[in-house]
């Protein structure tokens, strides 16, 4: 695959990650911020909202750029392995930043009338912990891939460039 195709592939995946990690969460939290259900206005705390949006944007940008590097690299290359591993690590930080930013404990306040006021909060911390545990397995897999690419470097190159024991494959 040439440089042009590599770059196009990288740009496509970068775009996908921008949508998944930044655009969708942004619209979701903006929607939650002013959620109105059954005529009862439910409002997400403004300070929390700003913090969530900041961390989503910050880590979303990092993840998207790393995805560009990783997906535009040639198959089974060491740089692909390194950046795929980095991407997964930053992904873990991104997931945990939901808790860190307050998105795992979201406080909702509603004020329907003089006789009907209150609040409730959603706690996603346990769910995120389970999710991070699953992510750990992904980190192990990516680490294994990287080690495999380093150990079998010569074989991968021979296969990629069509060389076998000094012969050119027909």
């Amino acid at each position, binding site marked *: 695959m040439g*440089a042009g195709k590599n*770059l196009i592939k990288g740009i496509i995946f970068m775009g996908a990650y921008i949508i998944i990690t930044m655009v969708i969460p942004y619209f979701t939290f903006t929607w939650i911020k002013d959620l109105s259900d059954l005529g009862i206005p439910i409002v997400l705390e403004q300070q929390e909202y700003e913090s969530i949006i900041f961390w989503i944007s910050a880590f979303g940008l990092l993840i998207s750029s790393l995805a560009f590097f990783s997906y535009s690299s040639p198959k089974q290359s060491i740089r692909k392995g390194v950046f795929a591993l980095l991407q997964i690590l930053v992904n873990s930080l991104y997931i945990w930043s939901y808790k860190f930013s307050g998105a795992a404990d979201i406080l909702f306040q509603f004020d329907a009338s003089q006789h009907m006021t209150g609040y409730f909060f959603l706690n996603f911390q346990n769910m995120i*912990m389970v999710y*991070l545990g699953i992510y750990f397995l992904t980190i192990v897999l990516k680490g294994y891939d990287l080690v495999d690419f380093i150990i079998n470097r010569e074989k991968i190159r021979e296969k990629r460039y069509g060389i076998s024991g000094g012969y050119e494959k027909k």
Partner: protein
Amino acid sequence: MIFQTVDFLQVLAEIIGAILNFLKPIVSPIGAWMINWIEVVLRIFPKNDLALYIILFVMIIIIGAITNILWPGDKPPKFFEKKYKLIKLEKEPERVEYKTLFKEEPTVEFKKFGEEFEEPGDDYKESAEEYEDF
């Protein structure tokens, strides 16, 4: 609530809940360990400075693009190309097409012999040296 009125969403939520409950005793301790190192690492990341993340984003993309233009991966890098040429010069024997010798289709036995012959090992080198001495 709207989520409780739609049956499909309720079933989906129960399935996800069951999977999470099943995985919880195995995966949660690993998740707790993950949280420990993540919290340490997150202290390094600056807060309320989005410009820094934008700069990092642009830098990584520029470096990625340059790397891909220089080494797209479809041809060997220069240092590897030299090595590849040396291996080729040292090992490749003269190839003689069967058809130019016999003008007939090769037999199965000959094909097998040919396949074995195409993998030169140390024997080939030794015999080549002997031939040169002779």
